[in-house]
């Protein structure tokens, strides 16, 4: 038996918002693969929970009229990977969440839970950052829209008020159109492990495939929160693709990152990974986009 004080079970998003407003201290239980484990561990023992697990209206991925891809937050990792829209337009995201845990965890864990946890190692986070995801956050007071870039507030901390629930993750058409991405996870084991470092790169090339029009690079575990590296990204804009450019971009990533030493890896090793994974992911993304490197 889990040590749970109260568990509220809303039947709709509207009801969930009311319950979150009445019980702001209650934790939202989506897939449970973090919260239930922390209850077992004692860290969250005796918590009040609001189980939104069964709210089907918060699951699924759809294409909106203007071409925006809407990912509902309770969509499981495996459903993100298997979704035809993700496979067609943002395969890097499907690949990223396909490297989380093992199959059972990917069937229960949700993409919304992954980013609301606020941990830097979340495998979906660097790709969602690199695609400028936009979050829809709801409460009884209404809906607010927030760039994912502004959501992270520190390790394990995100910009969610006690009465708010994440209700949508959007990726605009301009963000994925004619854009090719690659996520590389470095971990000690190939399954059931947390990233030592994660790097997600996407590029848009010029029509002749010789110049980088737009480069975006997201990292996990390269600092206290998932992050972008604006210095390296802007350095590449408008530049001709070359081996030297790849080296320059990869070197420039080190300016913005701030990894730490933990039992998994030293800061120095992570700095090496920041640079090396950027090179490999950037080359892969350029090749996918039809460029040659």
């Amino acid at each position, binding site marked *: 038996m889990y040590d749970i004080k109260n568990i509220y079970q809303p039947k709709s998003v509207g009801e969930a918002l009311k319950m979150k407003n009445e019980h702001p201290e209650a934790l939202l239980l989506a897939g449970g693969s973090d919260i239930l484990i922390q209850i077992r561990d004692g860290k969250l023992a005796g918590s009040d929970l609001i189980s939104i697990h069964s709210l089907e209206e918060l699951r699924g991925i759809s294409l909106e009229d203007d071409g925006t891809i809407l990912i509902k937050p309770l969509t499981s990792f495996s459903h993100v990977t298997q979704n035809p829209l993700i496979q067609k337009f943002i395969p890097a995201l499907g690949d990223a969440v396909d490297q989380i845990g093992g199959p059972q965890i990917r069937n*229960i864990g949700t993409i919304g839970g992954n980013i609301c946890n606020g941990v830097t190692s979340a495998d979906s986070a660097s790709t969602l950052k690199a695609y400028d995801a936009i979050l829809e956050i709801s409460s009884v007071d209404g809906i607010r829209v927030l760039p994912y870039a502004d959501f992270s507030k520190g390790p394990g901390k995100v910009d969610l008020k006690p009465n708010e629930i994440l209700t949508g993750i959007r990726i605009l058409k301009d963000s994925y159109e004619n854009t090719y991405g690659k996520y590389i996870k470095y971990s000690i084991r190939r399954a059931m492990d947390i990233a030592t470092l994660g790097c997600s790169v996407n590029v848009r090339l010029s029509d002749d495939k010789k110049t980088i029009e737009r480069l975006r690079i997201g990292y996990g575990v390269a600092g206290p929160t998932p992050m972008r590296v604006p210095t390296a990204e802007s350095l590449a804009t408008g530049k001709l693709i070359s081996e030297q450019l790849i080296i320059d971009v990869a070197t420039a990533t080190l300016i913005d990152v701030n990894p730490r030493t933990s039992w998994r890896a030293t800061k120095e090793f992570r700095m090496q990974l920041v640079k090396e994974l950027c090179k490999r992911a950037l080359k892969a993304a350029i090749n996918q986009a039809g460029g040659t490197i």
Partner: protein
Amino acid sequence: MAKQLITFTINGKLTESYVDPRESLLDLMRVDLKLTSVKHGCDVGECGACTVMIDGETFDSCIYLAIWADGKTIITTEGLTSLEGEMSDIQQSFVTEGATQCGICTPGFLISSLPIIESDKDFTREEIKKQVSGNFCRCTGYQNIINAIEKTHDKRKAEGLNHK
């Protein structure tokens, strides 16, 4: 905490149970329904010994609340044997290939193998490894387990038995 009535199909049988909202699906399976093929291993979703199939997908029942099973279709290893208790092809294959030793991980591996052996798609050994990467075995090593799954899949495919 007040118990709640849930309705679900377990191994083909429509069942009603009163469950505590704090109860895991693992406890519902083992304690309430006496389906003891579902093993109590790590309790934190790492070892896969408690794996069950829910609506065609595999889950660690230790980190799945029993109340979430309402309306779902669940399969455990008990559901793989025939009514007379005869082993299914995948179970026999685990025996033939020496893929089981102490046995505690075996039911979880059997359930995790279902998405492969029930599919008519071809799988590389790497893909099979990935599908069972959420299940730990500390006795036999993994080669024999992967052999058992691969051979069952190939045999079913040759006989046209994969139904997906």
